[in-house]
């Protein structure tokens, strides 16, 4: 028993001993690479790429599939000649309503923020309870803001006071009369409230629809509009239904804003580009040249009005008809406001942050779907390395075996294997992969398989020529005389000597595989929903945006080049050792993978 274990132990130890030359021949290249400055640079780059691939989920700042939205409160100001200023971001949340008088411009946001313009600067003021503010108006010296669940905030002498309307309905709009005697608030389910002498009073209306906007005329009467074509006239606490010239589909659409700043004339706008006009006696429907939702309307002067809405639409009324002005952005505006000489288009709806140039939020910018390119590139390194390593192992496994067998046995075996290599050389890689994808459908494995099945040809030739010279060496003959089997000679005596060369070939094959994977993915042969550097560029090309979005094109290419260069640099320093001719000189020479093909087989 004891004896047997010892025997086993012994044989195990002696087996381990066989591994020694393998380990040594693997460690030696590592040493050599590190001694060569270029090899060191290459291995550092390569290690960095490996690090990125390993820690991709932590390094990626966004989910690469997420269509990143931007949420911001912004205004575009304009004057009465319709000269537009730049898009200006004034807050972190979309602006729901704005109001202005001679001294003050005030905006309210979705969150509990009021933004007040002071000396050309926007000052944010947070109000205490968390109210989603929907409306604001300036009433004398007061700022009245209102929002969800009937909550109202009133700013008087720099301090805020809060109240809640008992019915707790959402208040959608506020308007103060031009003589500052009363304020109307309208909200969901047809509710109308009147504020005068610091007191809220609910007015009777027969409407059940949600009311969206209200505006006073200079004469002191007001118009209220709401969903499904609701229009109501208000005068001295009385609410009446207006006259219509005709009823049609347009008269029953949701209306979102109304402007009644000129006496006897009003415009209301709403969904699907609906524009309703009031002639002083009756309402008539008209329309512009857009079918997008209009959220705001304002009258600048007689025969001069503007409406703004979804997807950056701005419509202009020149006294006769409404037509689109050139888009400044394609974002969803929430309204438009004008007082005396200055107006604002404000909003905006959260929008997809598409084709954003690099910033601190998106290091490499975003693509046409608002996806973060840095995160895609980071995840792409995983695909590149996975394909690179697996394909290189496959290439090397086949190439090494074929080369070893072919070089050692020679004769007919050699001839047959080399004919197969010739056939492999007759098939170009990309078309071969294309045909495979056509047949088996796109997947990462097909790409690995295509590279693995085809490109071992170079390895086989290189290994074979090395084995050929080794097989004639005295130590091989000695082993044979000593009675070693062919397998033993190949594995124990020859392989360790070919291993450095195989290592070099592994590096070269890896560089080649990474390029090939990128190329095939670029052609759209990669699997969908897997990020690789090639697919990123494929998407860029497909979208057409690559011609301007340089941040989308440059990073993946740099990563591919860096990875492949690093592998080439590593292989170049190994070559110093494996190519004795080059070792003799005072400098070593790099030989990219195809240089081995220079000599026809048999050389």
């Amino acid at each position, binding site marked *: 028993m004891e004896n047997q274990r010892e025997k086993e132990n012994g044989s195990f130890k002696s087996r381990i001993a066989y591994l020694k030359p393998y380990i040594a021949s693997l460690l030696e290249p590592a040493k050599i690479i590190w001694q060569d400055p270029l090899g060191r640079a290459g291995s550092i780059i390569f290690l960095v790429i490996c690090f990125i691939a390993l820690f991709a989920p932590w390094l990626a700042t966004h989910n690469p599939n997420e269509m990143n939205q931007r949420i911001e409160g912004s205004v575009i100001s304009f004057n009465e000649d319709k000269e537009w200023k730049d898009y200006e971001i004034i807050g972190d949340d979309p602006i729901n309503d704005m109001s202005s008088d001679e001294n003050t411009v005030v905006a309210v946001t979705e969150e509990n923020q009021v933004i007040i313009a002071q000396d050309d600067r926007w000052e944010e003021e947070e109000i205490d309870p968390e109210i989603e503010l929907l409306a604001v108006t300036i009433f004398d010296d007061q700022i009245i803001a209102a929002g969800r669940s009937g909550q109202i905030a009133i700013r008087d002498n720099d301090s805020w006071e809060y109240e809640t309307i008992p019915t707790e309905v959402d208040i959608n709009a506020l308007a103060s009369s031009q003589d500052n005697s009363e304020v109307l608030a309208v909200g969901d389910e047809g509710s109308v409230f009147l504020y005068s002498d610091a007191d809220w009073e609910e007015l009777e209306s027969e409407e059940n629809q949600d009311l969206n906007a209200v505006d006073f005329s200079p004469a002191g009467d007001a118009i209220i509009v709401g969903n499904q074509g609701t229009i109501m006239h208000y005068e001295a606490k009385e609410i009446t239904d207006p006259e219509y010239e005709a009823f049609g589909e347009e008269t029953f659409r949701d209306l979102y804003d109304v402007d009644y700043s000129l006496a006897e004339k009003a415009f209301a706008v709403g969904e699907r580009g609906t524009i309703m006009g009031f002639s002083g006696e009756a309402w008539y429907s008209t329309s512009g040249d857009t079918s997008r939702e209009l959220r705001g309307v304002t009258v600048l002067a007689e025969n001069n009005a503007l409406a703004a809405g979804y997807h950056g639409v701005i419509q202009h009324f020149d006294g006769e008809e409404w037509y689109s002005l050139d888009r400044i952005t394609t974002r969803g505006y929430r309204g438009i406001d004008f007082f005396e000489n200055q107006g604002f288009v404000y909003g905006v709806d959260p929008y997809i942050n598409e084709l954003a140039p690099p910033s601190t939020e998106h290091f490499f910018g975003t693509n046409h779907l608002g996806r973060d390119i840095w995160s895609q590139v980071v995840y792409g390194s995983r695909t590149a390395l996975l394909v690179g390593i697996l394909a290189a192992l496959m290439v090397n496994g086949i190439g090494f075996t074929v080369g070893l067998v072919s070089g050692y046995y020679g004769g007919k075996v050699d001839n047959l294997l080399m004919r197969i290599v010739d056939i492999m050389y007759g098939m170009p890689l990309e078309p*071969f992969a294309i045909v495979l994808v056509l047949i088996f459908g796109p997947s990462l494995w097909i790409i690995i398989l295509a590279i693995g099945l085809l490109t071992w040809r170079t390895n086989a030739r290189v290994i074979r020529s090395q084995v050929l010279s080794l097989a004639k060496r005295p130590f091989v003959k000695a082993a044979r005389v000593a009675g070693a089997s062919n397998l033993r000679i190949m594995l124990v005596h020859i392989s360790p000597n070919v291993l450095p060369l195989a290592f070099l070939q592994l590096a070269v094959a890896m560089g080649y595989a990474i390029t090939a994977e990128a190329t095939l993915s670029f052609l759209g042969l990669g699997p969908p929903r897997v990020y690789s550097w090639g697919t990123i560029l494929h998407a860029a090309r497909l979208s057409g945006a690559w011609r301007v979005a340089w941040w989308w094109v440059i990073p993946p290419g740099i990563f*591919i080049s860096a990875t492949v260069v690093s592998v080439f640099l590593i292989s170049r320093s190994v070559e110093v050792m494996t190519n004795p001719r080059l070792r003799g000189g005072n400098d070593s020479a790099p030989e990219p993978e195809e240089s081995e093909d220079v000599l026809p087989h048999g050389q």
Partner: protein
Amino acid sequence: MNQKGYLLKRILQMIFSYLIILTLLFFLFRIALPDPTAALVVEGLSEEERQLVQARFGLDQPLWRQYITYLVNFFQGELGISFHYRGPVFPILVDRLYNTLALMIPAIIVSYVIGPLLGVLLSWKRGSSTEFTGIVSGLIMRSAPLFWTGMIFVMIFGIWLGIFPTSGMRTMPYEAAHFFDKIFTLDFLWHLILPMLTVAIYYLGLPMLIMRNTMLEVMGEDFIELCRAKGLSERKIMYHHVARNALLPVVTQAAVTVGLAVGGQVVVEVVFSWPGLGREIVQAIQTSDFPLAQGAFMMMSGVVLVMNFAADMIYSYLDPRVGQGGGK
């Protein structure tokens, strides 16, 4: 073995390799499309009509007969009917092959004229920073993926500077009676520059590095020592003796590269919308045009095999040691 025997043997080997590739292709496409009439059934073909179609195209025959027909048709230049173009595949592909060659040959000429010259320079300046820069930039040129450099070129020269057209061979619409009419124009040259530079830069690194390496090897040989002893000038030694001998692998590589370029550089044609063989095979995949894809692959691998053969022949001609005893 004499030169003639070697030549004959290599030709036979080449034909044999090609036959194997054709066979492989036949069976691959049989896996992909076991019954081509299946698609027709969807279009409302009855079972009887379908059998009629199968009989007409010989699809009811046993596999080996179909295989024989396939080979016979191939050698008669009948590669089938393209689904997409609704015409015979062969003439379409020949036209595309010319277009590809019109792009690749100038590119390879440029890279194989400039590359070796740079290689000589590098070997001359051995150990200097020039050599270091040369080697590193050579490696970078070979590492940057072709399609990416192509995209960058289009972006810089085509879009930002707007000095070169970014796609196609000629400005549309144009009329050309035949191929040479099409390419011997300034307009063609204008379209050629960007894609040609892209390919040329990619291929430049290889002959440069090969030239440098072989120059270094040849410089260590005895006969160079002898030349020095004879008192020849350094310049004369470099150009007459070293470079001439070092050119050998470069020339061989040039032939191999032509083959690879025709078969392998699909992406450049895609990026620049160059109506060549590579772009055709990609489009054939997108439109599931099996006969066209198959024909394009046959043509590509044919060119690759012929060019590999040419490389061998050039080599054995330039270095007679190969033909005799060598290449077994």
